[in-house]
């Protein structure tokens, strides 16, 4: 009955062929590295991956793309991955591009039992195609639907044995909403502490949302654009 799993392989062992999976992270920041590596070892394919980005060629979701495990990506920005581009053009991969705020809100809605909501993003663009448009107070909005998935993989900084999570810095990003929207949410944490250690007032994701938790096998945290302050920096 414990939520604590010994490693990533055990935690994701029941991910099945054609499953839908949400993966936290923005760029390579706050991505569930250990779960992704385990999923590559696990080997199921035809996956639908819901993630703001698609990783780079040899890191993040790029690893799953290279192994041809992904059938469809639901993302807002996928521009940093050449293999992605190749599979998309060859028709091996489907992609559903969604405005970032709409994606975030759809996931939040999915976890919150809101089946649909209206948002202004995408009105008058190709994103609006086939969608209900409605006016509220003189402004146009699109109807968008809540989004859930079979699994959610999230990365947190600290977690406790009851599944409570605290994220760090901008590694929080999509992780908190995804934790609420997975039928089974699997959290990999840098530090796992006994329940009662974390301040209840500082918890970002209450344990009820997390079905499994384990200590991340790796925290490589690759940096996409290492940008350093130069001497000539103004202001």
């Amino acid at each position, binding site marked *: 009955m414990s939520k604590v799993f010994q490693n990533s392989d055990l935690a994701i062992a029941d991910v099945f062929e054609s499953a839908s999976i949400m993966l936290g992270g923005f760029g390579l920041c706050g991505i569930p590295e250990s779960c992704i590596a385990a999923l590559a070892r696990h080997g199921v394919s035809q996956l639908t991956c819901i993630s703001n980005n698609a990783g780079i060629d040899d890191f993040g979701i790029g690893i799953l793309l290279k192994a041809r495990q992904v059938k469809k990506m639901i993302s807002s*920005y996928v521009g940093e991955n050449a293999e992605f581009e190749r599979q998309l053009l060859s028709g091996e991969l489907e992609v559903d591009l969604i405005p970032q705020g709409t994606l975030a809100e759809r996931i939040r809605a999915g976890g919150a039992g809101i089946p649909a909501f209206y948002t202004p993003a995408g009105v008058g663009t190709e994103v609006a195609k086939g969608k209900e448009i409605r006016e509220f107070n003189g402004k146009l909005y699109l109807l968008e639907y809540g989004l859930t998935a079979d699994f959610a993989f999230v990365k947190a900084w600290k977690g406790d044995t009851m599944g409570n999570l605290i994220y760090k810095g901008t590694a929080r990003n999509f992780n908190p909403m995804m934790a609420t929207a997975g039928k089974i949410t699997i959290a990999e944490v840098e530090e796992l502490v006994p329940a009662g250690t974390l301040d209840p007032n500082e918890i970002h994701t209450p344990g009820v949302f997390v079905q499994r938790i384990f200590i991340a096998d790796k925290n490589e945290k690759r940096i996409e654009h290492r940008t350093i*302050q130069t001497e000539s920096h103004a202001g």
Partner: protein
Amino acid sequence: MLDKYQIAQRIAKEIKPGSYVNLGIGIPTLVANYIPQSWNVTLQSENGLLGMGPFPTENEVDPDLINAGKQTITMSVGASLFSSADSFAMIRGGHIDLTILGAMEVSENGDIANWKIPGKKVKGMGGAMDLVASAKHIIVAMQHVSKDGKSKLLEECTLPLTGIKCIQRIVTELAVLDVLPEGGFKLLEIAPGHTVEDVKNATEGKLIIPDNVLEIELD
């Protein structure tokens, strides 16, 4: 003709002290360099940070602290962190005073295209559609004409749209212009060394030229 640093510098003058500003990728990012500390301007990064500081020193680099362009950054004094849903709630709810972003094309009725070129690599819109549909006030930093001499201030956009009727002000290498609510680009300022005629030639959309057009001043 302004270079990209000068465009950024001119845009910085549009920012009000004490305001909250979201800066897009490219020239908009450079704007941060021209905002005096004393203005107490707070920068929002839509990946979940309010209070973005300068790039880190070698020692300060933290892989868990990046901006929306995926660059390593720091936090300024009084910063706060939150989820992507909360970040776009902040944006969509109109709590950010000013959004500065780049564009490939803007039309005379304020439509903007800045996310996709048919036939080119698919990237995605990221947060651009949310930003343009929700921001209270948007300034666009863009090139007035393309490298092959085509105007990017058009009657109608030719590229896939990011948002409609949302742009209020544009700063290019040649001019500062407003998009009027009734349509049309109203010329406000011209880059040093250029004439109204230059701007006319570079603008395909309807250009409105008031009596007093100033020269762009950079401090």
